[in-house]
Each structure stands twice: as structure tokens, then as C-alpha cells.
């Protein structure tokens, strides 16, 4: 097998990718991939070589990725907006054979920065010889090295195989009307450097023979225009995107063509779910997954959507909620989400210690997320285990405290972290965005939270660390 072959069987005239004025058919896509495969081969890229691609959601990203996979290389998608020091650090951890630069990565070539890695400008057309054949790969052979977001101390590179990604694609295809179809048109706005956009939007749509409309830079008004113009049927976004779409300029029937709307990467606030439903008449189905699970674990496509739930476990995956010692929790109780599926990754690159902390010999991946199932088998997520603040032995989930503080009319944002405390072990500290008196806020917290969950200190800040996916980066506020 080889993930590069997903585009082989489709009718050559069908449209695969749309980027601005350019409509690329599957036939043309195959030609371009062949040409770049030849070029990469001449540049010395071969089996198991890490191949970094610094590009946005552009055609050359898809082409170079498929070309590299065809050679058996391990693709390293790099977020083009990464600041240079972060970029250098991440590249150093994977030591790529070659760094391919798309339009969004051209600044590297232009800035004369010395990064010590050979680069290839994808914007330049080069004549190459005939392409080598696509190499056959075992399902366990590595296909991607995914750079997970993380500071220097905990940056991790997740190793995903051809089999991992293929399973996740198949999990959302091939399920009759529930799955992605060949006539689906997806909006490619989630970054392809992230597993959600990469596997469940770009690769899955190409595999089924659908079309991906590329949106290189997020702009909510432009999204609505593209959705209406191309009749987007499958729309996947992160919560901040959904929030901005719900308020974007455009007609209220802009999403009339959307058959399936999904959200992932962070919790979708109920207010956003309701705003989208009220304006566009569609219910955003939340899913759940991690880079380490390729990413799909649960989804809500084709089933009744329950707001704030991430849906049901997808066929082929097993999810158990456990106590820290591995004992399954009582029915209906919360526990750490532990996953076993063919999508579970092969470990972190060069980090056996980190791998051993999350992955067992028999294939259970401990996600670090706390969740609970309802009586119908829908999963609801609570928080990240490592963010839990332990006050006098009691667990305080920052998301709950943040949720309460956010309900105060004068609070625009809140991040809650734990700090060491001599008496209680840890104590709850709130970082708050908003013009509100701390004693008033404390009264409010006392009225709505158990005493041990109430912040003991409030720090007013001008901005809060939020990742592009909508996740709060609490670690940046821990002292």
C-alpha cells in the first residue's frame, strides 16, 4: 500500500483541487505529483527520509506531500506562520533531508536565513526525468512526522504510519450516506499542517474522489463566499472559525449547500453552536481526536447531534474511561479517555520515555483527556488531566471554573491554573480579561462554585494565550 495511491483510481476529468481561479483535475494532479516525485528523487529524497513541507493550504502542499509519500519519505508538514526560532527548533528535532517551500514559506528563501537544511522552492518549475515508481509500503511504515504544538520542553513529534491514516480516512468514508461521498466538496480552510485538516479534510476528500476548495488564509467573509460559490457540502472548522462564521458578512442562506458541518480541535462553546444553528439552520457536529489517533475517535455525523457532546465512538475504535490505575470507571462516571484503534500512532520520534508514558504494549493510548459517557453512548469531554488543579485532594477542572467566570457579564475571557499552596497543596488562580472588580467576581464565584473551586486570587490581564484552534494555552500562565 501507499497513501500516495489514493488519487490513482479517480476519473481524470474530475476536479480534485480548486485554488482561486485554478481548477485542478485528478488527471492534472497525478501529472504534477509525478513531476515533483521525479524532482524530489533527483534531490536525493528516498525511503524513510524526513521531508519537510513549509506551505499553506496551497496546491503545491498536496502535490509535494503525495510525491514524497510515493517515494516512501516521511512527510513533515510545518505551519508556515511558525516564528523562526520555533521553526529551527522543530526542524532540528526531525532533521529533514529537504525543506520544500511553498508560497507561504517563501519568506525563508527570501530572508537568507541559514537554517542548515537544503531547501527546494516549489514555485520554480524544473525539468526532471521520468518519475520513479511509487514504492510499496507496509501499513506500519511511517508516512508522517507530525509536529505537535508545544514549547521547547515538551515539543513532541508524533509518528503516524500509512496504515494509521488510511484507517482514519476509511472510518469516515464507506459508510453509505453517513460518510463522505465522491460528490462532496470540502472547504480546505483548516491548516493542512494539522492532522484534522490534513487527514479528515484533504486526504479523505481526495481518497473518495471529491473536491477540495482551498482557502489559504482564514477570513470568515471569504469563507462564506466560497461556500456559496462552490456549493461546499462538507465544512469542517475549529471553534474560533465557527464563531466568526456565525457573525460573518453574507447572506443567511450562505450555508444552504452544507450537508455536514463539523468542529474539532477544541470544545465548541454552546453559544457558538446555537448562533450557527439560529443563523444558518445547521447543527455543527463535534468530533474528537488527537494527532496521536490520526485523529478520529468519536464523531456525530449521521447521528442526532447533542450539543457539547463530541459524539459516539467511531466503528473500529475502542474507548474506555479509566481510573489512574487502569480500572474502568463506574458506568456514568468520569475518567481518563483511553483509546485503542488502528489509528493509534507509533510513538513519539526519538522519545521512548514520552511514548512509554502514554502508549501501552497492547496498544492503548492514554489521551490525557477526562471524559464521561451518557446513557446513549455519547462522549462528553471535561478537561485535560494535566490542567486539573488539586485542592485538598479534590479535583478542580479549570474549564468548569472558567465557564462560571465567563458567565459574568463583565468578563470577556478567563484562564484558570493551579499554584502551589502550603495548606491545600494547590490553589486556584484565575487570569481574567475584563473590567470587573475582583471582590465582585469572587462573590460571583462563591455563589456558583463549591468553595474549594473558587479562585483564591484574580489576576487581570490584557490578553489570554489562545491557540489558533481555540484551545487555551494554560501552561503559559503557570508560574
Amino acid at each position, binding site marked *: 500500500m501507499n497513501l500516495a495511491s489514493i488519487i490513482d483510481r479517480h476519473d481524470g476529468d474530475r476536479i480534485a483541487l480548486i485554488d482561486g481561479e485554478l481548477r485542478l483535475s485528478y488527471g492534472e494532479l497525478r501529472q504534477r505529483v509525478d513531476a515533483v516525485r521525479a524532482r524530489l528523487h533527483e534531490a536525493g529524497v528516498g525511503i524513510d527520509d524526513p521531508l519537510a513541507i513549509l506551505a499553506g493550504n496551497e496546491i503545491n502542499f498536496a502535490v509535494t506531500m503525495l510525491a514524497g509519500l510515493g517515494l516512501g519519505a516521511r512527510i513533515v508538514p510545518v505551519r508556515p506562520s511558525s516564528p523562526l526560532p520555533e521553526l529551527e527548533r522543530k526542524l532540528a528535532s526531525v532533521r529533514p533531508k529537504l525543506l520544500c517551500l511553498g508560497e507561504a514559506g517563501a519568506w525563508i528563501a527570501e530572508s537568507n536565513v541559514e537554517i542548515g537544511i537544503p531547501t527546494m522552492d516549489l514555485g520554480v518549475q524544473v525539468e526532471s526525468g521520468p518519475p520513479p515508481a511509487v514504492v510499496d509500503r507496509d501499513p506500519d511504515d511511517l508516512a508522517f512526522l507530525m509536529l505537535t504544538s508545544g514549547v521547547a520542553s515538551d515539543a513532541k513529534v508524533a509518528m503516524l504510519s500509512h496504515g494509521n491514516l488510511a484507517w482514519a480516512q476509511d472510518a469516515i468514508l464507506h459508510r453509505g450516506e453517513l460518510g463522505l461521498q465522491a460528490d462532496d466538496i470540502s472547504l480546505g480552510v483548516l491548516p493542512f499542517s494539522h492532522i484534522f485538516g490534513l487527514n479528515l479534510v484533504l486526504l479523505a476528500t481526495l481518497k473518495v474522489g471529491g473536491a477540495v476548495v482551498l482557502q489559504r488564509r482564514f477570513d470568515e467573509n471569504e469563507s462564506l463566499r466560497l461556500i456559496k460559490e462552490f456549493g461546499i457540502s462538507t465544512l469542517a472548522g475549529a471553534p474560533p472559525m465557527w464563531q466568526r462564521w456565525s457573525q460573518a458578512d453574507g447572506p443567511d442562506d450562505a450555508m444552504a449547500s452544507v450537508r455536514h458541518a463539523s468542529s474539532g480541535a477544541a470544545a465548541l462553546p454552546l453559544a457558538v453552536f446555537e448562533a450557527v444553528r439560529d443563523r444558518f439552520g445547521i447543527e455543527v457536529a463535534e468530533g474528537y481526536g488527537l494527532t496521536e489517533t490520526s485523529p478520529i475517535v468519536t464523531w456525530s455525523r449521521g447521528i442526532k447531534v447533542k450539543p457539547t457532546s463530541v459524539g459516539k465512538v467511531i466503528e473500529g475504535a475502542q474507548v474506555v474511561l479509566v481510573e489512574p490505575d487502569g480500572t474502568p470507571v463506574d458506568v456514568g462516571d468520569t475518567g481518563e479517555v483511553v483509546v485503542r484503534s488502528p489509528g493509534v500512532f507509533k510513538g513519539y520520534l526519538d522519545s521512548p520515555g514520552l511514548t512509554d508514558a502514554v502508549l501501552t504494549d497492547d496498544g492503548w493510548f492514554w489521551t490525557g483527556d477526562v471524559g464521561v459517557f*451518557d446513557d446513549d453512548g455519547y462522549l462528553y469531554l471535561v478537561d485535560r488531566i494535566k490542567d486539573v488543579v488539586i485542592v485538598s*485532594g479534590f479535583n478542580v477542572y479549570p474549564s468548569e471554573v472558567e465557564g462560571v467566570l465567563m458567565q459574568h457579564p463583565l468578563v470577556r475571557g478567563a484562564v484558570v491554573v493551579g499554584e502551589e499552596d502550603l495548606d491545600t497543596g494547590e490553589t486556584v488562580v484565575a487570569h481574567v480579561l475584563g473590567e470587573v472588580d475582583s471582590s465582585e467576581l469572587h462573590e460571583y464565584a462563591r455563589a456558583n462554585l463549591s468553595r474549594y473551586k473558587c479562585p483564591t486570587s484574580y489576576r487581570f490581564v490584557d490578553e489570554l494565550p489562545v491557540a489558533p484552534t481555540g484551545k487555551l494555552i494554560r501552561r503559559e500562565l503557570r508560574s
Partner: protein
Amino acid sequence: MATPAFRFEAAPELPGADRVSKYGFGAVRQLVHRLWDVTIEGVEHIPANGPAIIAPNHLSFCDSVFVPAALPRRVWAIGKGEYMDDWKTKHLFPAMGMIPVDRSGGDAAKAALDTAASVLDGGRLFMIYPEGTRSRSEFLHKGRTGASRLAARTSSPIIPVGHKGTLEVQPPDQFTMSTRLHVQVNFGEPMYIEDFGDPNDPRIHRTFTDAVMFRISELSGQTYVDTYAAKDDSPGFVSSLEDERQARPPISVPTGRPTAPKISSPKARTPKPVAPKGQTLADNVIDLRSDVISS
């Protein structure tokens, strides 16, 4: 102190409705308040009418005597069906409000929950130990979520209860109860699940249960540990927090995962008083070696 005021509440649909139960229960209450120095705080939090879930900490077998005896209304709880096979217990326990539930069947938990719900739906008090079993470590353990589900299902408040002194009355290795000791029973304010979030959100049960346990820890003065009470625990020792686990858990744990910290013995633990000789109850009077079925 004098036996506090009490309303018997006949409940024809529940066990213990007969005259024997009425006098039997009254006698046990009288006896408790004569033989022990029982102090009760917060009894005004028990509603005069209507349902409520009584949720005490659980340290000794005799908790099932002292908490009911401290209540101003009759209370029911679920106990093992096996008690009905023993002549010593088959009359006394139902009279004390125990509803026998057969634990052998596959649907035992559901049967227990349904029985509990019927008690509450009838506007009565129902007692359940949220820890599920006696705390052999003497810490307050993580609560099971059954009481919270019951609260959501029957729209009943939970009344947290923290008591002290029962362990001295009847330590685990002692068959009888030592008299003339002080037992303190503290009732907290009723807690309503709606005050903690949407009762239809499955996340509510852990939130609400933890809030109840926190209140119990304040009322009992116990240190809380976030693991379930287990039979291998011993005073000051929580077996699940030890590195060496005897039983292999069903889901394997990553080898590189840091293990939970060990819990040390609380500093303020008071030594157990030795029971004065000749002041124990007769063997067959009260022997509530009943771990009430956990939620």
C-alpha cells in the same frame, strides 16, 4: 442527652411497616441515646416532609445505627438480601429501615437504584454511603455517583453528613459496640443538583458528587483522598496509591506514567480509646455488619 423528637412514618409499601418494627426501632433509638453521648448538629437541615438523600461518611459498621438514630424521621437504606436468611437479622434489620436487595442477579445495581427511587418518590428519606463501602484507611474516599443520579432522577436534595466517634465505638476488629463514648453527627444544608449545573449533562454527576464529598469532609473533619475505598486499605494506608498492585488492572497502564503520590497518615489522627470492660452491648443486639450496597 434525651432522645430527640422523632416521627416514625408508617410506610405500608416498604419493609418494617408492622407494629414490631415500630417498637423495635423506637427501642433501638432510645438505647442509642442512653448508652452513648450523641451530639447532633444541623438537624434543622432535615426537611420535615418530602424526600431527601442522607449521605454520610462511612467508618464503622455501627454508622448504620448512629445516623438513623440521629435523624428526626425514619430512614430507609438498602442492604444485602442475605440478612433475610438469618433469624438474628431478618426482623431487626428491616425494622431499622433496611430494604433487602438480592445482589446475586445481574441487574442488582438497577434493582437497588429502582428500590431507592421508589423510597424517595414516596417522599421519604433514603440513606446511602457515597463511598460505597467502609473506609478502612479512615480517610474520606472518592464518592460513587449513584447518589447524584438518584438525586437527578427523583428531584431530591442530598444532605451531607459527617460523623465522628463511631470508629471508637466499634473498631473493625470488634464484634460489639463499646458504650459511653461520644459520637458526633453533623448534618449539612441540603444540596440540590440544579445548583451545580444542568442535571441532564452527564458531567454533572462527578461535579455534584465531589461537591457533596467536600461538604462531608468539612463536616467529618476527614482528609479526602481521590480514590475509591478498597478492602485492602488499612488505617492511614490507601492500597490503590501503592506502586505494587496485586491485581492487574483490565486496561494496561503505560510503563512510563508517573505513579500517584503516596498518602501519608494524617498528623491529627487521634488514638483509639480502649473500650472499658463490661460496657459492651450484647452480641445479638446490634450487629450491623452490613456494607450497604454501594451506589
